[in-house]
C-alpha cells in the first residue's frame, strides 16, 4: 500500500503546516477534528487498518500511531501557546479605574475631648498615676474652705461659681478630689483626676462655662518643684510628641504654696508672638504648686509628714492646640460637621 505510506507523510506535513497557521482555539479544534476527530483523516486511516494483511497492518499501524502521538503533542503545544497568548491579550485589556472613591464602612466618631483625655490618662498611668474621679455637685467645704480659700475673701472671686438652690454648687475645679482622695487614702500617692468643671462666666472663642480639667496630685516624703517640672515636661513631650519648651512663673492659688503658672512656648507661632498667645509667645496651660499644709490638715493628714505638688490642666486648651481648633465653643456645639472630623 504505497498510497497509504505517502498519505502518512504528506498528512504529517500538511497537518503541521495547518497547526502552525492556527490563530485561535476554535480553529485549533477544527483542525484537530479534521485529523483526529471521529471522521478525521488519521482516524479513518487507523480504522481502515483492520482490512490490511497482518504484516502491512503492523507496519503502517505503527507509523500511523506514531503520527497520532506526534500530532497530539503538536496540538497540545499549540493549544497551550494559544491559551497563553489569549490570556496575555485579555490581561492587557483588564482595567479598573482605581481613582473611583472607595466604599467606606460606616464608622462613628469619638469626641475629640475623649481622644485627648485618654491620651492624658495613658501618659500619666504609665508614670504610675491612678485615675480617680469625683462628684460634679460639690459642697462649699470641698470646693473652697478645705482648699484654704476662706469665706468672704476676694481670693474666692478667682472662681466664678454656679450656685444651686439646694445649697450646693457646681465644682469650679477638680481640686476638691484632692481632699476627697486624701481623706481615704494615705500617701504616698499619685493620682490624676479628669472631670467636668463649671465657671460662671460669659463665653467667647476662648472662654466656656463648662470645661474639662485634669488635676494631678503627687504626695510623698520628698516631692519637690524639680520633680513637678520633670513630670510636667515628660507629659508635654509625650502629649505633643515633640520637645516642648515650658516655663514656671509665680502665681497664686490658695491651696498651693508656692504656686505657679505653667506655660508652653506658643505652638502656633513658635514663640514669636501671634494672636493666639496674645503676642506674648507663651500659652498658659496649667496652674500648679506645692500642696499647702492646710490642704493636708483638712484631709486629716499630718502636714509636716508629707510633701507634694498638684496641677490642673485645661483639656480643651490641650485639644485645641493638638488639632488647631480655633473656637472652644465647638466642643459642646453638637455640630457633626465638627465632630465627624475626629
Amino acid at each position: 500500500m504505497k498510497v497509504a505510506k505517502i498519505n502518512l507523510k504528506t498528512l504529517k506535513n500538511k497537518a503541521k503546516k495547518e497547526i502552525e497557521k492556527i490563530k485561535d482555539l476554535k480553529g485549533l479544534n477544527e483542525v484537530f477534528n479534521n485529523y483526529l476527530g471521529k471522521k478525521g483523516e488519521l482516524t479513518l486511516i487507523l480504522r481502515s487498518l483492520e482490512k490490511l494483511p497482518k504484516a502491512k497492518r503492523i507496519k503502517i499501524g505503527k507509523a500511523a500511531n506514531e503520527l497520532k502521538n506526534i500530532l497530539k503533542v503538536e496540538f497540545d503545544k499549540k493549544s497551550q501557546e494559544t491559551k497563553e497568548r489569549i490570556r496575555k491579550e485579555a490581561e492587557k485589556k483588564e482595567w479598573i479605574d482605581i481613582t473611583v472613591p472607595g466604599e467606606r464602612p460606616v464608622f462613628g466618631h469619638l469626641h475629640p475631648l475623649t481622644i485627648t483625655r485618654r491620651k492624658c490618662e495613658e501618659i500619666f498611668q504609665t508614670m504610675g498615676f491612678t485615675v480617680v474621679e469625683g462628684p460634679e455637685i460639690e459642697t462649699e467645704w470641698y470646693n473652697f474652705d478645705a482648699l484654704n480659700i476662706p469665706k468672704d475673701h476676694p481670693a474666692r472671686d478667682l472662681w466664678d461659681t454656679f450656685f444651686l438652690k439646694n445649697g450646693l454648687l457646681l465644682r469650679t475645679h477638680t481640686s476638691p478630689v484632692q481632699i476627697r482622695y486624701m481623706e481615704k487614702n494615705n500617701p504616698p500617692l499619685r493620682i490624676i483626676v479628669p472631670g467636668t468643671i463649671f465657671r460662671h462666666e460669659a463665653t467667647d472663642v476662648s472662654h466656656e462655662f463648662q470645661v474639662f480639667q485634669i488635676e494631678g496630685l503627687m504626695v510623698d516624703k520628698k516631692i519637690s518643684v524639680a520633680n513637678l517640672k520633670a513630670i510636667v515636661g515628660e507629659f508635654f513631650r509625650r502629649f505633643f510628641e515633640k520637645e516642648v519648651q515650658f516655663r514656671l512663673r509665680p502665681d497664686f492659688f490658695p491651696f498651693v504654696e508656692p504656686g505657679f503658672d505653667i506655660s508652653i512656648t506658643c505652638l502656633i507661632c513658635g514663640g514669636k508672638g501671634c494672636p493666639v498667645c496674645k503676642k506674648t509667645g507663651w500659652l498658659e496651660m496649667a496652674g500648679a504648686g506645692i500642696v499647702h499644709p492646710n490642704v493636708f490638715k483638712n484631709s486629716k493628714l499630718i502636714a509636716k509628714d508629707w510633701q507634694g505638688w498638684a496641677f490642673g490642666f485645661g483639656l480643651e486648651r490641650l485639644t485645641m492646640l493638638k488639632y488647631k481648633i480655633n473656637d472652644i465653643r465647638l466642643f459642646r456645639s453638637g455640630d457633626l460637621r465638627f465632630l465627624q472630623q475626629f
Partner: protein
Amino acid sequence: MIFSYNWLQSFFQAKLPEPKKLAEILTMHFAEVEEIKKDGQDFTLDIDVRPNRAGDCFSHLGIAREIATITGLKYIGDTYVNLELREDKDLKAKDFIQVEVKLQQACPRYTARVITNVKIEPSPRWLQGRLKVCGLRPINNIVDIANYVMLETGQPLHAFDGEKIESQKIIVRFAKNREKIVTLDEQKFDLNPDVLVIADEKKPVAIAGIKGGKLPEIDKKTKVVVLESANFNSQTIRQGSKKLNLKTDASLRFEHGIDPNLTELAINRAAYLIQRIAKGKIAKGLVDFYPKKVLPKIIKLDLDYVEKLLGIKISVNEIKDTLKKLNFKLTETRSLRKTNQIEVEIPSFRLDVNIPEDLIEEVGRIYGYQKIKSVFPISFLVPPKRNLDIFWEDMTKDILKEAGFTEVYNYSFISENDAKIFKSFQNLIELENSMSEEQKYLRSSLIPNLLKNIQKNQDYFSEIKIFELGKVFEKPAKEERILTGVITGDAFFQAKGVLDILLNKLGISNIFYDEYRTAAEEREICWWYPRKCAEIKVDGERIGFLGEISQRILNEFKLKQKVIYFDIFFEKLSKLASEEHEYRPVSKFPSAVRDIAILVPYQVRVEEVLNKIETVGGSLVRDIDLFDIYEGEELPGGKKNLAFHIIYQAEDRTLSSKEIDELQNKIIKNLEEKPEWQVRK
C-alpha cells in the same frame, strides 16, 4: 491693675530696665504683666497682681519694692517714711475733729489730720498726668492728692470739708435701718446694719472704705480739710460692697486687707503734698485711734527644708540675702544654728507671709523657677490601680463608635422650656444664679440636648446616630452617669441590635426586653410612644429603656424624622459588665438548615413562636434566625407571616436527615396546636 512706668522710675536713681524688659522680669519673678502700652511720654504696665499680694502691691511703692528686690537696683522710696512735716503749733487737730470708733473689730485703726487755710484749685499738671495714666479723673487738688497717695502707697484716703461735719465729730459705726446716703457722684443708697459708715453726730457722711458722701464734699469754698486714713476690716468692707453692689478703688483695696501701720505713712504723705500744693497749714497732731498695734511676725525657717521643697540647692548666703532684700530681718542664735534654722521677722505690710512655705516661695521666685532643673521623683513602685468605671466607659464608647455612632458632649443644663416640654421630669435641681434661661436647671436626662443636636444637624445629614455618656442630676443632690443614644429614621430594631451587641461585648447575657406598660397618667406627659417602648432587663433588673420619641416631642423640637432612643443607667451597666468570657468549641459535625414559614395573628409576639421552637427543638436546634416578617394585604385578615431558618446541629455526631425531619415535624406539629397558627407547607 495699671501702673505708670515713669512713676515707678521715680523711686529709683538708676535707670530702670526698658518697659518690655521690666515686664518680663516682673512676670518671671512676681506677677504677670498682661499688657504694656505707650501713653504720651509714659508707659503703662497692666500687672495682674494676685489677691495675696494686693495688700502691699496694689500700689506703686509696692511694685517698686519688688523691682528693687528682683533687680538689685537701689530703691529710694523709703524717704517718704521719714517725711518731716511742718506742723502749725497754734492749731491743734484735736480742736477740729474728734474720732469715735464704735467697733474696733470693724475698724482697727483710724487716723485723721487737719489742714486749714487750703486753697482749692485744679492740681498741677504732673499730678493730673499721673492720675490720668492710671485711669483716674482729676477733680481738684485735695481730692487728687488723696487719690494720688492711694495709688502710691495702697492706702485709700478720704478728705472731708471739716466745717460741714456736724459737731466736729467723726463716728465709725454700722448704719441703722432706713438710713440713707447720697454719694459724691450723687447716687442714692439705702443703708442697713451690714454696712459700716462714717457718721457725724447726726447722719452718715461716708460709706466707710467704699465711697464718700455728698454732704461734706470738698468744694471751692473749703478751708478746713479733714483727712481720713483708716484701716477697715476686709470682710466688713467686702460684705458692704456686695450688699450695696458698689465697688470702688478703695473697696477693692480694703477687701483684700491692708497693713494698719500704713495709715500713718500715707496720711503724712498726703498732708505734706497738700501743704506744698494747696498751701495749707497742718494742724498739730495726728488723731489716731489704734488700740492694738500690729507687730511684725516671726517665722522659723529650716534651711534644709528650702532645698527639700524646691529640689535645688541654693546657698545659705543666697537665701539670707534674698530675705534681707525683701526687708525681712534675720535672727541667728547658736541654738538655731545647730538645727540649721533661722528666725525671720516679717514686716507687717507683708500680709501674705505667714508660714515657712511662704518664705520658700519668696526665695524660689526671686532665685527664678526657670533655674530649677527637672529631676524625676524617687518613689516606691506602686502600680496604678485600674479604674473600672473609666474602663467600661471607654469600652462602651468604642463599641458604639464601631456601630457607627458619633459621640457628643452637651452642656449639663436644660432650659425652662425643656422642662415644660418634658413634663415628666421630676426633682430638677434649679440653679441659684444661672446666666440665661438656657441654664435654668441641671439636666435629669440627656435626651433634650440630644434632640437639639438632631435638630441642629438634620439639614446636613440624612441619618443621624449620636450618643452621650454623661452625668444627670436630681434632687436632693443625686448625680449618676447615664448613656443615651438617638437614631433618626425607622430604626427601632437597629437600635435594639446595637444594644444586643453592646451588652454582649460588655460580657452581659440574660438580656430581656420587656414591654413597658406606660401608665394611664403617664401617657399625657411621656416623651415616648406609649406602645413603642421596651424596658431593658438583665437578670430581671431594669437597666434602661428603648423607645421611639413621641410625635408631640418631635413637633416641639421641629424634628423631621422619627427618632429612636435608648437610655441606659450606666452605673448599673458598669457593675454588670465583665471581662470573663469562655470559648465554646466549634462542632466538628455539619449543621443543616430547614425553613419554617408560619401564619399567625398580628398580635402574636415573635418571642412566643421562638420559645415554642426552642422548647421542642431542645439542644439540637443551635440557632433560629427570623429572616422575614410579612404583613401584606393579600394575607388573610389580621395575620402576619413569619419565616425562620432553623439550624440543626449536634455536638457529638452528624445528624441524619431522618432525625432532622422528625424533629422538624415535631416542631411544626407543636406550633399548629394553636388553632390560629398555621404552618405553611
